[in-house]
């Protein structure tokens, strides 16, 4: 394992970042509209659906918070477009053969927003802060030995001014994956980000943008980091060339989707990201009519699924679970919810993952008659079955409507129960549902996705698949080599087809929409914008 990782990093450091696999290439396609030479300056406005929670990375966060903050702070490593981990603030990473000692060599000349140069001591300080329970780092259990994998960072030490050592209690294939994680951003910050009493002030990072102003409920403004030290490799994921061209980034809180669309059409915002397929039609119509917006389509790593209560006296029966699977026309659900823009995918191995193969495109066939037979043999007699969903995430709602229609057509008396999202989530964590139309947000590696729903239900009811064989295979994934991982993932999926722990539906299709004056913008699989390397055609258009 360690060898393969090292190989991956050698490749990365050599600048061979784009190991294109599967549909990942789709995202990398060069834009076909007027390429021009980059120009600096101007202000770009981006609509965000809710205000950020804080400016404290990895501590008080949600999706929009992460999006704003990864423009400000940078971790040692980051994901590439193809979801591999590559160096960012580190120049190289050496791993000992036992896989327990990671030595990060930092790039020299990287400056913080306050002008100071990045040194090994800053990395040590940042990580000690993250591992201190008083900080409230959301993923502390990933690194302190209390989590599922038992991984623990035993020591973080500065060896020279530009090298840092991380000593682990066990080898781990996922350590760097976690370090690169977006939700638990491990960006290196300057100690002045925190007041002398330990309270959070503001993020002083090394990223291409620095925080200018946060007007709660209204907007967040970032300014270009003039001395940003960029990598020379091409832009990829959250690493590579991240030169900031635009002077000011203005994230405007726009909760209503219709209002956000209207703002885009009027030019009040320049970018709308992660537009769901249902709303794509109207922006496409605008493009065709006025030509002032450009659509960027992509498949995400988000995975939507129908959860079936494992402990339910009726639904817990294997025949009943298979019956439900046979009653659902997979392709049609994907077609309905995504207007034909995303293929069905029952496998946790995402369509754009390098591990995806035809093996993962096979699922139980649509066969209502068989569904009826199986349901009858499971003793189902038409009693009502409740399907939970919510209106906050329209795809979960649309899936639920389609699923209900299909299951009813196959003789299942399914009723919808529309909850608010927090209630549904609460039911999910307590295992308090029969059927639930659900979604798993982007996981960078299929192993992480398997890990979120496979496990011991006596520890957490949120595990949908409590099966010894499955748990064993997921456990092996954490330390396996790349080739072995493929084999394990294939095996896991075969087991899923037998047991139907849950029914995967598809990986979401999203669209980012930009005004034509925005140049060189590219979306990526995480469904969030990256605004470095982007410039404005007529800079200074707005004062």
């Amino acid at each position, binding site marked *: 394992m360690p060898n393969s990782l090292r190989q991956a990093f050698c490749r990365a450091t050599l600048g061979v970042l784009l190991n294109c696999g599967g549909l990942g290439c789709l995202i990398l396609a060069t834009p076909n509209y007027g390429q021009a030479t980059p120009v600096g300056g101007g202000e770009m406005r981006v609509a965000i659906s809710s205000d950020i929670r804080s400016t404290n990375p990895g501590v008080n966060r949600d999706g929009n918070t992460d999006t704003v903050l990864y423009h400000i702070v940078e971790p040692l490593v980051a994901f590439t477009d193809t979801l591999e981990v590559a160096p960012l603030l580190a120049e190289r990473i050496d791993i000992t053969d036992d896989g327990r000692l990671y030595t990060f060599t930092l790039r020299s000349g990287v400056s913080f927003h306050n002008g100071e140069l990045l040194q090994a001591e800053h990395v040590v300080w940042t990580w000690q802060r993250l591992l201190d329970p008083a900080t409230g780092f959301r993923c502390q259990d990933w690194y302190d030995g209390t989590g599922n994998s038992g991984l623990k960072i035993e020591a973080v030490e500065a060896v020279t001014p530009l090298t840092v050592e991380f000593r682990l209690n066990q080898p781990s294939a996922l350590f760097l994956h976690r370090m690169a994680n977006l939700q638990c951003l491990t960006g290196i910050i300057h100690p002045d980000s925190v007041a002398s009493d330990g309270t959070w002030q503001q993020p002083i990072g090394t990223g291409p943008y620095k925080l200018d102003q946060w007007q709660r409920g209204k907007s967040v403004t970032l300014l270009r980091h003039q001395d940003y030290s960029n990598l020379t490799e091409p832009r990829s994921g959250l690493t590579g060339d991240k030169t900031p061209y635009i002077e000011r980034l203005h994230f405007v809180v726009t909760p209503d989707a219709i209002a956000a*669309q209207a703002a885009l059409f009027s030019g009040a915002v320049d970018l709308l990201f992660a537009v769901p397929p*249902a709303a794509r039609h109207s922006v496409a119509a605008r493009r065709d009519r006025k030509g002032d917006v450009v659509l960027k389509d992509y498949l995400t790593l988000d995975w939507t699924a129908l959860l079936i209560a494992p402990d339910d006296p009726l639904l817990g029966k294997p025949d009943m679970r298979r019956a439900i699977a046979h009653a659902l026309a997979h392709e*049609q659900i994907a077609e309905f919810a995504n207007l034909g823009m995303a293929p069905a995918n029952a496998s946790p191995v995402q369509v754009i993952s390098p591990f995806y193969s035809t093996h993962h495109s096979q699922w139980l066939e649509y066969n209502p008659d068989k569904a009826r037979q199986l349901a009858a043999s499971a003793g189902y007699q038409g009693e009502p079955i409740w399907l939970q969903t919510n209106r906050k995430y329209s795809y979960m709602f649309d899936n639920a409507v389609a699923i209900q229609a299909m299951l009813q057509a196959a003789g299942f008396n399914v009723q919808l*129960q*529309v909850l608010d999202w927090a209630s549904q989530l609460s039911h999910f964590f307590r295992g308090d549902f029969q059927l639930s139309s659900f979604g798993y947000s982007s996981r960078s590696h299929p192993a992480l996705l398997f890990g979120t729903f496979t496990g011991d239900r006596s520890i957490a009811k949120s595990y949908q698949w409590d099966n010894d064989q499955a748990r064993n295979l997921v456990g092996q994934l954490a330390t396996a080599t790349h080739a072995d991982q493929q084999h394990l993932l294939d095996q896991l999926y075969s087991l899923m087809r037998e047991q139907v722990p849950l029914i995967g539906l598809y990986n979401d299709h999203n669209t980012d929409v930009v005004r034509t004056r925005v140049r060189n913008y590219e979306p990526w699989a995480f469904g969030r914008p990256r605004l470095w390397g982007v410039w404005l055609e007529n800079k200074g258009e707005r004062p």
Partner: protein
Amino acid sequence: MNQLVLKPHAASKRTPGGWEKIWRIPSARISLLFLATVVLLAISSTVYLPHDPLALNIDARMQAPSGSHWLGTDFFGRDLLSRMLVGAGVSLRVSLFSVVFATVLGTLVGTLAGYRGGWTDRSLMVVVDAILAMPGILLALVLMMIIGAGEVGVVLALGLAYAPTVARTVRGTVLSIREKEFIEASSVLGGSDPHIMWRHVVPNTVGPLTVLCSSLFAQALLSESALSFLGLGVPPPYPSWGGMLADGRQFISQAPWLCLIPGTAITLTLLAINLLGDALRDCFDPRESEHR
């Protein structure tokens, strides 16, 4: 706040010919006919519908109104006309039942408070005032989240949110009736409390209540739409007009009819109810004709 209380004498002035008088007002006649049509359509939808309102049709999504789909189709390719017809029933039923629930609960509390007076009255009114001081739609939203979305949830939530208004009105009416001689006479003659309440007090509140109910009905229809708009309302697949409006709104630029049609239906129905309410007020309660 006392100015809000409908005065009781109006009720006692009620003449048997009230409904005939209403029929003579043109706006009320048109409103009644319109509402009757909506009700008839809603009832007939249980027998006949042009299409299955729940059937998904992948090849006919978001089609503009046409010969085969008179009002077009929605995001799932479902026939909008059929859904509007079924939705009429759902919306009217939900509004009606929440008003009935509010009226029953409010009348009980109001009569009790007004008739008993003293501490019963004072403590009940503190509760009523406390609820009245909270924004109604937010209260209904919270109640919905507690009870759970569903027709019953909407009915209970709206009913609980409106009951205090009814209670206040009824209490005011009861208070002034209580002073009237015929009740004193009745109690001198040895009538029991429940008997007096039932025979003399309750009938006298009917007039002001009818007027109040028409305005509550309009508010319930509106609030159901607002709840759907905020993400909770009558759950699918059976549609309410408010739910359809909320669903259609994301397609306003590509399929405006999804939003225009339910919105128009709600507006026209509300208009009819409000006009009818005005007429009721003129007939039952000519003096206090505008206090809501």
